[in-house]
């Protein structure tokens, strides 16, 4: 229960409740997800209700209230990526890792998320692993990309 870390994050934003979204992002960056104790701490330090914090934490799709794997794979399902076969890449990821969008492998190594658009549309289909971009993806490239992180 690292309350000190949460407090530091909130203090960085001057304890201002209008920065809630970015505070939650920094908390997620620190812990890998949004742990309940951090949300309650944020509520009390910012002077807002826990339900308000949960409202925001569950509204925005980048927040996760459950622990995620060591590596985060984001597969883009934007229009350009969709047209160029992102569903096949997703299918191959399922074959390789056994997980679908929103799931984590049982060894807690990989979490797969679907995103609406990463803005690299000319390289469709695109996926990111941690913060690295992998463009012009094909079914055949998936295994090799995953191996880089194993």
């Amino acid at each position, binding site marked *: 229960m690292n309350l000190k870390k949460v407090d530091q994050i909130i203090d960085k934003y001057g304890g201002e409740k209008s920065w809630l979204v970015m505070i939650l992002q920094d908390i997620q960056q620190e812990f890998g997800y949004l742990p309940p104790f951090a949300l309650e701490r944020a509520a009390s330090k910012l002077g807002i209700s826990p339900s308000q914090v949960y409202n925001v934490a569950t509204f925005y799709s980048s927040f996760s209230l459950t622990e995620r794997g060591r590596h985060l794979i984001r597969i883009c399902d934007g229009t350009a990526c969709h047209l160029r076969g992102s569903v096949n890449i997703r299918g191959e990821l399922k074959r390789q890792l056994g997980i679908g969008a929103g799931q984590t492998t049982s060894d807690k190594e990989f979490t797969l998320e679907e995103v609406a658009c990463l803005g690299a549309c000319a390289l469709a289909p695109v996926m990111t692993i941690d913060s690295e971009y992998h*463009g012009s993806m094909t079914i055949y490239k998936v295994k090799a990309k995953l191996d880089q992180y194993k």
Partner: protein
Amino acid sequence: MRLQVRKENLVKLASPEQLERYRNKLQAARRQDKPCITICGGTGCRAGRGLDVARVFRDILKKKQFDRRVDIQITGCHGFCERGPLVVIQPKGILYVSVTPDDVQEIVAASIEHDEVVERLTYKDPGTKRRIFHEMEIPFYANQQRIVLANNGKLDPANIDDYIAVGGYASLAKVLTRMQSDEIVELVGKSGLRGRGGGGFPTGHKWRACREAAGYPKYVLCNGDEGDPGAFMDRSIMEGNPHSVLEGMAIGAYAIGSDRGYIYVRHEYPLAVENLVIAIRQAEEYGLLGNNILGTDFSFKVRISRGAGAFVCGESTALMASIEGFSGEPRAKHIHTSEKGVFGQPTTLNNVETWANVPLIIDKGWEWFANMGTKTSTGTKVFSLVGKVKNTGLVEVPMGITLRHIIFDIGGGVAANRSFKAVQTGGPSGGCLPEDQLDLPVDFDRLTEAGSMMGSGGMIVMDDRTCMVEVARYFTHFLSKESCGKCTACREGLLRMYELLDGITSGRGTIEQIELLEEVGLYVRDNSLCGLGKTAANPTLSTLKYFRDEYRAHVVDKKCPAGVCKELTTFDIDVKMCTGCGKCVKSCPVEAITGKKKAPHSISQDKCIKCGMCRETCPFNAVITL
């Protein structure tokens, strides 16, 4: 990674004259004829290891002791992402495409040590098969009119000196010393500039309303959410020329009487956030942002607010709610945000591209801007041309140019020479237009009349292997998930529309359901509060209008003519066309194809996952869909 090490020079420009002197000093120090290797540092080229290419260039130049006589510059996004990593050798303007770290040695030997060109790395025109060496002669670039994107390839976004050297902040200085705020508003009004985010609202009107509103403080906001999938114009501007946005916002702030602002950036654009943060810091160090800009009474402070994954936060009131720390629920605009916006204060919100146009209009005048484009849609527009097109990337052209010109003359036509089926414009709020609409001019009004819209500039080309019903299903699914949930029509209606479309694409649809789909679509359109709900039915309604036959095929014949909907498609091999070359066997990810060499092959339907890779790979068109 920055290759140019900036000296910690304590430059503080305390007056417009000091800015001009500093600019002259920078320009004099930069010899126009000195060779410079510019490497695109945008997200797309980085994905292709562009930064590794840059690193190898630096190492090789250092080893050969060329580093004093040749500059290296990592620039903003050039917008030709599919051909990246892009390297341009200035001042000659030789463009190398798809450069890998292993190519660098050869490039240095040819283009730097000798006056030669590495032909195999130059652009090859897909139509004429000719090699084109000079960047500006390539039809993709030559047919564009780049004013907003003009400097992306010429400056390092992490170095403010580059922006100043090409004339940056001269417009802000002009405004602060020689113009009154109402003059600025009038000038922007006369230019005819309309919101580039898709709304197309006249910018001058917006500024005037905010200027006249009562209250302090007033806010200036930049909408960098760019939620439309397939659109990356704003990403390119924020990453590649962040100061153009800052300068525009500062001018706007001065015009309306604001001293503070936010740039709202989607969190999926980390490089844009990083470059904006650097740019703000450097501009503040130089006295071009912050308190007493250029020694005047005018102060303007900007902060970055990140999105967290919500398409609806591109809507103005939802964006403001997000900045205030709430979830992004839009509100009805009986009271305009120019009177009561973020934190209940008078607010001017404009899109990234809109802001980037402002310094140019101040510099070159309203007539220069109004003379481009059409009477009611002046200036240029940046489009992101993607999908099944040969040249994908960012295209900036004057408004009024036809869809055909953009897709065929600049885009090079449909990829793999397949046939054109439709172009989707305006993101999820837009619609799909078929071939007979290709001569429509692209501006704020004409595409809307045809059932689509220009929107923020996303332009997605579709070929005969795209299923239009599946496209409607895709967009409706997206919008249904992104609905904030406030309005029953949007929340429930989109979900039902998605269920109907999902049923149709899975083979469970009926004719009556198509009529029901239309009815629900109109209901959603007419009973939703915000732009998301109001336009959410467009993808469905426009495909029903132009591609109704395809819907009928799905429900009556239970077939998907494009061969996309998996439950309605069977892949098979035509034994008359198959030569037994075996390419399909290698392409199948689940080993579903078998056959002896030089004999017709066959697909095991039990194993087949309908991915279509065999059809893509077969050189003899032997793979057919039933």
